[in-house]
């Protein structure tokens, strides 16, 4: 172990044992006198990085994760050839041995299926967007569509774990945890990494490991904000315990701990006490961020009718904006329900209706508040869907299986080229034709926008320096202004 990483480890363990940046919040609470020099020294640095590797273009990230794998062929990747060849078998010359899932892999035929939805070109890039996304079409000028994203994984669990942690097996830290570890917090009254999940849309499951800390200290794990009950688990005092009662008890606790500190001389005593104060402050700051009462009618209308229902994608988008304003570093939304093996035409209508206006409103709202310049927004799922039908095509109905070889992700803000289309697929919409982008490349690009060299933000675990992008990943320079 190098001297340098020793120092780093040491600071990290200090951080783990105390807290990121409690100094400010405590000072304002009048708790400064409780903090010894030791404890202060430990809270100076907010993240493990002494300085950023590059100038940061993004201060925060909002990742709109479309769990289940949206069909790029019915949303963004316009393939008229599939309509012409509707019902014909997928030629082996196109498939070229790509492994299929066991769900359609044993079908006697793989009939191509064209999208029943109309496409038109939108924005300065002339990006093709399907009629399912009228609101997204309006902001096409802000978005950068990457149509050539690909992955190695053909099943949900490994694919989504790969997207969120850079590795397909459980155990690695998620993107947000890496950023919390690297950059620390920019608002001590809220978690650095927040997760919001659309309600009532689970088909494929989500797993808490997707926002887990893996082998990083657990302070870096994402905190799920919930739309019912306590927004953060155990946030509220027990029934009957008033804020005054709690405050008074915490003050007395501090008194006792001060006596203990004199006796024991262990700075851990104070570091821990600081957490109680943070928790107390969160009891105010979390409900505040979750409360939409202060939002104007005009803003609420921007997000659409759904915004009034907690737990909808639209409501979560508005919360994401509020958190972005408060400098939450990584805001992870999940909208599940995109796993359309069958009944795709009907189901995708529902899902696009769920998310379309929220996306539009979020981008528009961020922009008009000047936040889009330093907020990176990402939209996408864990893989794409096949150009052939799973099962039989019947009148007005079909389904698509998982497809790893190409899918579309869009990004916006933080110096990503607005109104830009990058990468393309072949006429069958089966393989990437130009500018392939793999999942690690996306992750490297996210980090680059935040000022981090993905190869240099590492954590030593069991003797090896791990990083988000494992052993690959390159920044997609072409999508950056």
């Amino acid at each position, binding site marked *: *172990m*190098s*001297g*340098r*990483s020793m*120092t780093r480890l*040491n600071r990290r363990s200090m951080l*783990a*044992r105390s807290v990121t940046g409690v100094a400010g919040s405590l000072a304002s609470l009048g708790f400064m006198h409780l903090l010894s020099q030791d404890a202060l020294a430990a809270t100076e640095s907010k993240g493990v990085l002494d300085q950023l590797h590059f100038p940061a273009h993004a201060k925060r990230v909002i990742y709109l994760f479309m769990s289940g794998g949206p069909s790029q062929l019915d949303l963004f990747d316009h393939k008229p050839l599939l309509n012409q060849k509707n019902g014909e078998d997928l030629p082996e010359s196109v498939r070229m041995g790509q492994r299929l*899932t*066991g769900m359609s*892999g*044993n*079908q*006697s035929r793989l009939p191509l299926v064209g999208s029943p939805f109309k496409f038109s070109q939108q924005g300065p890039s002339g990006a093709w967007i399907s009629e399912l996304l009228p609101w997204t079409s309006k902001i096409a000028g802000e978005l950068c569509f990457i149509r050539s994203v690909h992955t190695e994984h*053909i*099943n*949900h*669990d490994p694919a989504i774990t790969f997207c969120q942690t850079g590795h397909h*097996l*459980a*155990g690695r830290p998620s993107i947000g945890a890496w950023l919390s570890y690297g950059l620390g917090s920019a608002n001590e009254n809220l978690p650095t990494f927040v997760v919001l999940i659309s309600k009532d849309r*689970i088909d494929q*499951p989500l*797993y*808490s490991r997707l926002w*887990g800390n893996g082998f990083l*200290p657990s302070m870096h*794990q994402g905190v799920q904000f*919930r739309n*019912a009950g306590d927004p953060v688990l*155990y*946030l509220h*005092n*027990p*029934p*009957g*315990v008033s804020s005054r*009662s*709690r405050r*008074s*008890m915490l003050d*007395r*606790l501090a008194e*006792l701990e001060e*006596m*203990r500190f004199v*006796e*024991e*001389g*262990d700075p*851990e005593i104070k570091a821990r006490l600081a*957490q*109680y104060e943070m*928790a107390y402050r969160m009891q105010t700051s979390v409900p505040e961020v979750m409360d939409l009462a202060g939002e104007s009618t005009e803003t609420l209308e921007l997000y659409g009718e759904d915004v009034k229902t907690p737990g909808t994608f639209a409501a979560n988008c508005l919360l994401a904006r509020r958190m972005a304003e408060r400098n939450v570093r990584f805001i992870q939304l999940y909208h599940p329900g995109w796993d359309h093996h069958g009944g795709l035409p009907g189901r995708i209508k529902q899902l696009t209706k769920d998310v379309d206006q929220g996306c539009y409103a979020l981008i528009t709202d961020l922009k008009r508040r000047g936040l889009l310049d330093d907020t990176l927004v990402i939209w996408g799922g864990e893989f794409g869907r096949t150009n052939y039908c799973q099962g039989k095509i019947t009148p007005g109905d079909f389904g698509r299986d*998982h497809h790893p070889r190409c899918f579309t992700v869009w990004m916006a803000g933080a110096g990503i080229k607005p109104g830009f289309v990058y990468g393309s697929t072949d006429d069958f919409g089966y393989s990437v034709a130009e500018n392939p982008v793999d999942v690690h490349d996306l992750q490297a690009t996210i980090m680059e926008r935040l000022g981090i060299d993905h*190869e240099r933000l590492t954590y030593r675990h*069991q*003797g*090896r320096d791990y990083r988000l992008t494992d052993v690959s990943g390159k920044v997609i320079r072409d999508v950056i202004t």
Partner: protein
Amino acid sequence: MTRRHRFQWMIILASILCIVPAKGNEPAKKLSFNRDIRPILSDRCYACHGFDEKKREAMLSLDTFEGATAVRDSGVAIEPGKPDSSLVIERVLSNDPELKMPPPSSNKHPLSSDEVNLLRRWIAEGAEYQKHWSFLPIASVTPPRESASQPIDRFVLSSLREQGAAGFSDRATKERVLRRVTFDLTGLPPTIAELDAYLADESPQAFERVVDRLLSSPSYGERMASEWLDAARFADTHGYQMDRERRVWSYRDWVIRSFNDNLPYSDFVKWQLAGDLLPHPTKDQRLATAFNRLHNQNEEGGIVEEEFRVAYVVDRVTTFGTVFLGLTLECSRCHDHKYDPITAKEFYSLFAFFQNISEPGQTSYFTPDMPTPAMLLSSDKQDAEIVQLDQEIAAKEIVLSKITDDQAFNDWLTKRPSAPEIPGKVAEFKFETIAGNKLVNEVDAKRAGNCVEGPELVEGPAGHGKAGKSSGDNGFDFPGLGHFHRAQPFSFSLWIKQPEWSKRAVVLHHSKAPADAASRGYDLLLEEGHVSFGLYYMWPGSAIKIRTKERIAANQWTHVVGTYDGSSKASGMALFLNGEKSEVEVIRDNLTKDITYGDEPNLAIGYRFRDNGFKDGAVDGFALFDRKLTPLEAAHLADRHDFIEALESQNLSTEQREKLHEYFLATVSGAWKKSEHELSELRDKKRRLLAPIPEIMVMEELPSPKPAHLLVRGNYDQPSDEVTADTPKALPPLSADTPRNRLGLADWLLSPDNPLMARVTVNRYWQMLFGKGIVETSDNFGMQGSPPSHPELLDWLAKDFVEHGWDVKRLLKQIVMSDTYQQDSKASDWGREHDADNRWLSHAPSRILTAEMMRDQSLALSGLLTVKIGGPSVKPYQPDGLWSIAMGNPNYAQSHGPDLYRRSLYTYWKKTVPPPSMMTLDAADRSYCTVRRQSTNTPLQSLVLLNDPQFVEAARAMAERSLKEGGKTTQERLEWLFRCGTSRQPGEKELATLLATFEEQQKLFADNPESAKQLLKVGERGVDEKLDATELAALTAVTQMILNLDEAVRRR
């Protein structure tokens, strides 16, 4: 510690300790390669100039003396004795980015001047290499001569003195030591009575008595199990996607039992690795092998099974490496290890030990039973019944086989029918017409067949009219037919034709799916022309399956009859092709449970969910029988004349006579039928006995090893060189007479020559008691791991442990009885200045309680704790809706009553949504093996401890107890509460604060009496209504405060 500091330490260390005093009289100053140099080379150089040949740059290897000192075109990398002419020194000092080492592009830090100086000195001293310390044999060490009676103390004291300390810190107070050792050995706080007893006992044996009491308390096993379950990645669900329940708590019970019985650790390990391979293994020995199956298992539909089967085996190897060897074997899964001498080939040689079981890569969705191999968790009584039934069945089989009923046969022969009769036909379909999407059933018109997704009718075999044709995705199904269980004999008969052979084609089946249902049911397949017939409980481990040796002709009609006698044995199955009994190969012969679902699927022809159907295949004349057909019947169904000829023949050949006799017995003989019926009853009784008995996944070695290959870059679909089971070369070899199986591997692991196993084990228990191992990286004893702080102590402990029969209780007692352990945790002035991270153990370490201890303490002190060892997992309070992110929106059926208050190791662990409070309090993620937990400090932890109903209710119950047991006055009660929470009396000022807190809280609650009532309602236990609500609420608030004191949540 700063970099400078660290290297000062290293120099000091090097000067005082030497693992192997190779040349005893060397001046103490000489640097040690292992301690001083290897960490630098390993971290900065070995990634490109190390062990991994494929990644080796410039053909230079710095990991061996030979490699480093070889003369090269450019010079010599390391020239012993001559640092100035060693290229290594030149390159690390270079300012030229092209030459500089490590290259700036590697993102490795340049060497500091201290490090360069160390390197120079070492080269000057001769550049002596050493084998990595942990690969050297465990040394026999004599404890240093120090003024302490215990060897442990002599080692620690000696190091402390070398560092300049005067000695140990003072002994901790009796209260503090009792609290410490009680948590460490039982995971629970001491009771007031235990505290009083110990304080009152002034004999020199007082502490030893405490230790003995704790080690023999059943809570000891629970505490030890909590630790082990992290390593075993124990959880109640499978982990991937659907994350369905797996009932494996009986393994946890075994772990608790083993620790409480003080099973020698060597047996504890051997049983888990290879209990099934021991001679005549006991049930416990087999149950222990569940350890190898607790990795995540994937149920997701459509996965490639081999991809995940490989992942499972890799997990086994990884866990084996972490827990027993302290090596990161998984680093060599894709390439040779970068730092440690483990090649990828050696990784797959270990892999070969762990894959020889009949297991699926995908766990079944439709039949959520244990993936195979599994063992029955039967009671002793059930075992006795099973043995009894097996004997009765065997006896009855002999009886049946001996029945000839000759007299009746001869009578029958004289008046035998003239035309063949085939009784027992329950359905017949001729595929002549499709009317309203239905097929006519010739036997029972009400049970017609269905056409599914538009199969066609085509020309059938000559003389049979039309036939049905499947595309592979469509076909026919037959509701209400063929729902046989495994004790029922049955047969089927049909014509089939397929234009060309395919790898696999499902002709007929009664099942929901292949992988997604573990093939449960029965089927008839065509496998590259071979006809197979199988009955399945859980494929691949529990099934019977036969396959014809011959292939049927492609594109030609073949008649197939399959028969089964209800015996659950492959020998009870037969296949007839075109009326002739076929020679078959037995593919599986181990059907352990039933082939039914409870809600039976339709018998179907031509297609199956997520399977290869009978593509372009045609079928005709499908008939189903509820008995085992005889050869003459099979021949007759295939349009042969054998049966008619036999019936008509006046001059029966021997063969004809025998066949008629067989037919007679099966269809006419009352004696035979009666006996067969009795046999069926017995088989059915056994079937019904076994069906509800739960199972657990275990290891069950296949008779011959599966072929193993090096997988290129770790990819399941890129096998390369074949490998055989073997251990890494860097460690002592497997002796020639050791079997190349898991048992041999376990023996190798536990052999006294193994340098890692005992060291890794004692280090982990040291870590359990001191918070940090002698080797801090308890999960990595490789070159990138941290060197031992007390290498000689480690070796002494390891040797002593092995020599005393791997006795864990003895080891723990030895450690906690030491002065080292019993020091105060308060750092001395010297310690604060010179031993801030307590590497030298200048004081006892303090650390936050584990998640389990935190919750268990509250339950124990409140009196709520349910004292019960073992059993199924329980579901304590959890906020609503957490599981809604999991697949299928499963319901968290919270427990009630005593199950709300079990110790935390029994808390139900759903891997994809683990218990939130436990996770917040730094419990390990049970998706993979962990031997070192995180320790963090976050506001979310405060929220859990203050607001989680479990903790709130416990505080209230504890406050309630104080009213009843804590004395008469508020002051007495507050003292009692404080003493419960911290194990000591409060000081005067502390008591004043407690009283002030109580008064403030009482006033607040008195101002709003309703709020007091609300607080008292938290939890399901209910409160004594007679108590004063305001007083109790105020005491509850004070109790919460006490339970959140540093002294309550930290073991000091």
